[in-house]
């Protein structure tokens, strides 16, 4: 892998790693006596580990010229593996935190193992570790194929992928040690946030530079979504994380905003992390891999356009539905509710577009579990967006908010939509990337499919039940006009559902472990080279010198 880099790129890589190592050590020095120093050492160790891999092949000869006539897929391959590793870890922790709610003494008197610290490891691990790596990996693949151009250089995609994973490591280890901003899905502290901005700028630059080299006049719809994902996540991330650190040697910072303004900013961020990370990015995935696997063109170009701009415009208004009946001014709540309802139109336009694309390929859906994963994802996308609009109605929200219904809703989206479309896409992508005619076992994909579906259904029904029951119990009055149930009564009523939820999660976790095994065997087992791979090449590659320049 290192040998595929040009000598110049290897030199630049070494310089960047030395700089990061120095920054890490500097953090360790100024942060003495604070957990900030621990993160300094982790950064230095991370850079050191990458350096060791780099140094093993630093003197390898320059890559063959033919190499530059092919698409550059090494970062995609590594991204796929990283995504699955994060997925297994984060979902395992999900099962653990679910079990903590049924059996709270599983904390073993260790601070890092308590619910409040493990929960963000689960949420960030799944969203950013599993989802984010899958997005980066697939976006590099889709970008090259739909533009028929090679990535502009070979160093910046590695910087993005490995830099992004450093952010994920800082996030997860930070939570375990208690370093958090407490803003949901934006918990990492100020220095990790700054680092993510650097990574993200390079990510955006890769996109723009590749698009500039494209051999296709039109930018394909998948790339609109990936670009919206990159751009809007940057806006959200920067605004919501504005904060003043206690000092340059402290991990702790205080958010620039307070109270009601902070709440609105946070849920403008939080809801649009769902929109632009977990929806827009994964729609990009769907718009490429689903038609590819089905062998059918996207059903409607116009529906894609309406859906894309509808989502990009309206989602940004919807965040305030997280704050119904709170101290947020009423007019903002109303705007959030209205836009959430209208959002159903572009959302269902995308879900419908995906399902109608399958017309003429339903026999493939029946026979091919990989395509069925994508079909199921589109259905769950339709369900979760309908549910989301419904729950944004003020009166419904008065019942659902603060209960497990919200948790159930999130998991319809996360398990049913995000994870399913990712599994489908990765299963399709792995044989192409490693030039195998097929996956190691189609039957294991089938097993995974049914485990994932069963796990999602068990999980979601448990949370729907517990959420609605608890919401109703909280507002039940007896004939004398007093509240019937104490809070504790409602908590006791949740117990069986918490066990069911942990079981549903366990089924889903088993599924991803099987996926990991299947993909690993596909990669490692010797297999005949896929004949079709020979035609998977960029158009008219320019002279090798042009992209051998890493610092371009």
């Amino acid at each position, binding site marked *: 892998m290192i040998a595929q880099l040009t000598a110049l790129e290897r030199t630049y890589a070494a310089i960047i790693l030395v700089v990061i190592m120095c920054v890490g050590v500097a953090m360790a020095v100024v942060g003495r006596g604070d957990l900030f120093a621990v993160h300094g050492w982790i950064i230095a160790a991370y850079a050191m580990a990458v350096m060791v891999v780099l140094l093993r092949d630093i003197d390898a000869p320059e890559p063959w010229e033919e190499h530059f006539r092919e698409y550059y897929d090494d970062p995609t391959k590594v991204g796929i593996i990283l995504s699955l590793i994060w997925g297994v870890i984060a979902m395992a922790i999900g099962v653990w935190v679910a079990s903590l*709610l049924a059996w*709270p003494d599983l904390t073993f*008197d260790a601070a890092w193992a*308590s*619910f*409040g610290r493990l929960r*963000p490891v689960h949420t960030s691990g799944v969203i950013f570790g599993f989802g984010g790596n899958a997005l980066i990996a697939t976006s590099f693949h889709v970008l090259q194929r739909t533009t028929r151009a090679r990535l502009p250089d070979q160093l910046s995609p590695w910087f993005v992928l490995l830099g992004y994973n450093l952010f994920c490591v800082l996030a997860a280890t930070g939570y375990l040690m208690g370093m*958090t901003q*407490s*803003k949901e899905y934006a918990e990492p502290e100020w220095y990790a946030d700054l680092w993510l901005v650097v990574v993200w700028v390079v990510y955006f630059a890769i996109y*723009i530079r590749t698009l500039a080299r494209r051999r296709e*006049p*039109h*930018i394909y719809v998948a790339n*609109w979504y990936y*670009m*919206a994902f990159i*751009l809007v996540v940057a806006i959200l991330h920067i*605004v919501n994380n504005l*904060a*003043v650190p206690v*000092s340059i040697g*402290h991990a*702790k*910072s*205080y958010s*620039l905003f*307070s*109270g*009601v*303004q*902070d*709440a*609105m900013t946070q849920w*403008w961020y939080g809801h649009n992390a769902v929109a632009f990370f977990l929806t827009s990015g994964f729609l990009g995935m769907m718009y490429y891999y689903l038609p590819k696997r089905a062998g059918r063109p996207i059903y409607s170009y*116009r529906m894609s*356009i309406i859906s894309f*701009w509808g989502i*990009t*415009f309206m989602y*940004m*208004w*919807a*965040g*305030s539905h997280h704050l119904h*009946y*709170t*101290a947020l*001014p009423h007019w*903002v709540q109303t705007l959030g509710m209205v836009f959430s309802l209208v959002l159903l139109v572009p959302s269902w336009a995308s879900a419908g577009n995906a399902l109608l694309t399958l017309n003429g390929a339903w026999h493939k859906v029946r026979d091919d579990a990989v395509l069925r994963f994508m079909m199921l994802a589109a259905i769950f996308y339709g369900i979760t967006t309908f549910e989301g609009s419904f729950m944004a109605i003020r009166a419904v929200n*008065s019942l659902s*908010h*603060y*209960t497990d219904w919200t948790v159930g809703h999130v998991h319809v989206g996360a398990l049913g939509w995000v994870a399913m479309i990712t599994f489908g896409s990765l299963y399709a992508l792995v044989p192409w990337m490693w030039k195998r005619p097929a996956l190691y076992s189609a039957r294991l994909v089938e097993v995974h499919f049914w485990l994932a579906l069963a796990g999602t259904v068990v999980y979601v029904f448990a949370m729907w039940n517990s959420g609605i029951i608890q919401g109703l119990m*909280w507002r039940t009055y007896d004939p004398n006009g*007093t*509240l019937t149930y104490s*809070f*504790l009564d409602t*908590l006791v009523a949740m117990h069986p559902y918490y066990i069911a939820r942990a079981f549903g999660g366990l089924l889903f976790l088993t599924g991803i472990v099987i996926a990991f095994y299947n993909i690993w065997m596909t990669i490692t087992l010797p297999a005949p080279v896929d004949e079709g791979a020979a035609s998977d090449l960029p158009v008219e590659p320019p002279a090798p010198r042009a992209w051998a320049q890493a610092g371009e």
Partner: protein
Amino acid sequence: MFNFHYRLERNAMGLVAAIIVVASIGGLIEIAPLFTIDETVEDAPDMRVYTPLELAGRNIYVREGCYACHSQMIRTLRDEVERYGPYSLAVESKYDHPMLWGSKRTGPDIARLGGKYSNEWHVAHLYNPRDLVPESKMPAYRWLLRNALKIDDLGEHLAAMRAVGVPYTDEMIANATADAYGQANPDSGQASGVTERYGDATNLSLFDGKPGTLTEMDAIVAYLQILGKLTDAAKQAEQARVE
């Protein structure tokens, strides 16, 4: 419209600009006015800031992720007001950087927890919730009683809070460490300065029951006991409605 788009999607920078403009509108219209419209946050002349010890406790609350299960936002619904007390006003979290309104109630709302239970109850409950509430799902936070509280840098914390808009005085910042000690040791010489700077109503107590030392338990209990008590605005507003 579709012809326009047919041209737009051939232009990468045009697409980028269009995405940024279209996506920015919602946030600008919904968030920016919250900083300029005066009615957004009520007036509360009696509102006081967190003492250094309470701020340290709040940071522990954040560190342990308590907000994942406890909200601090009573909604304007009859059952919530009857269960938890007067509904929350925006001004009550004016000095909360960040806010801790929460999004999930695995445990009850605690916006008005302050003064509801004794310090001893809180210490015992945090040490092992199931000793007092057998059905509780809350983790046992025994390490709070073991860990010494870090107070030497509290002045820097207050200064950072002032940088984001909380009206801490120079005197408060200079005496932050002593005030933290004094609030948890009412018999010590440092105690009088706390009431001088933060008001007579400030809770001075041996929060964890142990004199001389400061533990994280002192700080978290001091914080829990001030919840809903930084201002009387919510109670006054309710009184006014009743009358």
